[in-house]
């Protein structure tokens, strides 16, 4: 598919009186990887949590503005946040497989919640998700073992498989490799690039090189504002805004 999968209009997010995200407009295309960069506390994590209505789960948090997903405003009247979260998957900083659930069940959980019960359908979907998350060959013989028994990198790929299983058009990733070693990080990065064929990825990262390696476009946030959004190749060679230049070259922090 072509065109915009996500369109954010005048998004503002608050924690009580604190204005965390200010008037952000941003669009993301199908089959695109978009990296969000910026110093800690700049609002990038809050921003992506607004893209699947997780932000509102925090007591005292609220947001205004529109987020169009596949042409539907996720903040529109009557929209169920649970359905939104099924369509916009999320992978967090720390791998969080469900304790007590097997590898298979961790991946199948979303499908079961969606009402899928037929074993053959579940098996097929789990295998497909595990293959796409480059984990299948490592776990195919131990699908009944607990997900928490895997290494950190494998657990993170399991979480990606869990998000992929329900075939969402968008997956959000909030620093998915910050707790991983370089090999596991490289595997996840390869995976993200591969995933582009199936899904759009919006990733928050503090690793500049990661942003430059995997994303097509990069957005730089500062103090809740979107300072610059453009082609990653341009941002990392010739940023238009002085603040972007100063941040990515480490002149300010």
């Amino acid at each position: 598919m072509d065109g915009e999968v996500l369109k954010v209009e005048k998004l503002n997010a608050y924690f009580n009186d604190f204005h965390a995200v200010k008037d952000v407009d941003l669009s993301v295309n199908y089959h695109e990887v978009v990296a969000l960069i910026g110093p800690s506390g700049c609002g990038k994590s809050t921003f992506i949590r607004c893209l699947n209505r997780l932000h509102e789960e925090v007591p005292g948090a609220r947001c205004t503005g529109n987020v169009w997903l596949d042409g539907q405003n996720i903040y529109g009247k009557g929209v169920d946040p649970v359905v939104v979260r099924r369509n916009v998957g999320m992978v967090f900083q720390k791998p969080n497989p469900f304790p007590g659930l097997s590898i298979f069940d961790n991946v199948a959980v979303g499908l079961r919640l969606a009402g899928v019960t037929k074993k053959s359908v579940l098996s097929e979907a789990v295998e497909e998700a595990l293959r796409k998350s480059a984990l299948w060959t490592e776990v195919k013989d131990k699908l009944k073992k607990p997900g928490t028994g895997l290494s950190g990198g494998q657990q993170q790929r399991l979480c990606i498989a869990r998000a992929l299983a329900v075939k969402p058009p968008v997956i959000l990733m909030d620093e998915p490799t910050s707790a991983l070693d370089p090999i596991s990080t490289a595997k996840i990065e390869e995976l993200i690039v591969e995933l582009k064929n199936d899904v759009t990825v919006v990733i928050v990262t503090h690793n500049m090189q990661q942003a430059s390696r995997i994303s097509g476009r990069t957005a730089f946030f500062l103090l809740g504002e979107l300072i610059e959004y453009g082609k990653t190749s341009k941002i990392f060679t010739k940023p238009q805004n002085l603040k972007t230049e100063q941040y990515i070259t480490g002149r300010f922090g």
Partner: protein
Amino acid sequence: MLPMHRHVDTDLNDLKDLLLSMGGCVEKAIDEVHEGITKKSESHLAQVEKQEKLINELHTRVDEECLKFLAMQAPVASDLRLVLAVIKINTDLERMGDQTLNICYNGREFLRSTIEQVPKELDSMKKEVRFMVKSALDAFVRQDVELCKKVLNHDDIVDRYRNQIVDQLKTKLKSDPNNTDAYLNLIMIAKNMERLADHATNIAEDVIFVATGTDIRHGHEQIK
């Protein structure tokens, strides 16, 4: 955000200093080779070979330092453009060292001739070339785009001098066939001198790229 001290700036300054040392050797080599030819002095020409050796040593060192810097600092934006420019300027300066050596070899041949005078335009041409090289290096230090534009404009003046010298010597080749070798050597000297100006132009173009992020090569007419 607060301004931060960057260790990377120390490394970048070291790189710049190395490149400027190399530029200094090139400037000295140009002076020596010109003195050697106009004063018919072998001792000056010998100095060119010495400078060229130093230039080659620095050429290798600058490349090594750039490789280390790229691997260890993974620079982006203006830092990346600067290192890229250093690598390119390094090549230009090394070639300039080679050009001065070529001029030196042609100069030695010329020294054997009975001709006492070189075309007076050669002196003017050398002054222009020296101005261009010095200005390009100064512009690199200060990232001075205006000075770069001056360098680009002066390239045309050098070309004109080269053409004048070649025309003059072609006439002499016909009228004084006994000194054919000497005139051919002088033509080669003028051509190599003009190539030095071309390398100075390349440096100025690279500096504009560092300062503005705009690649003006192959179309610097617009920026003049």
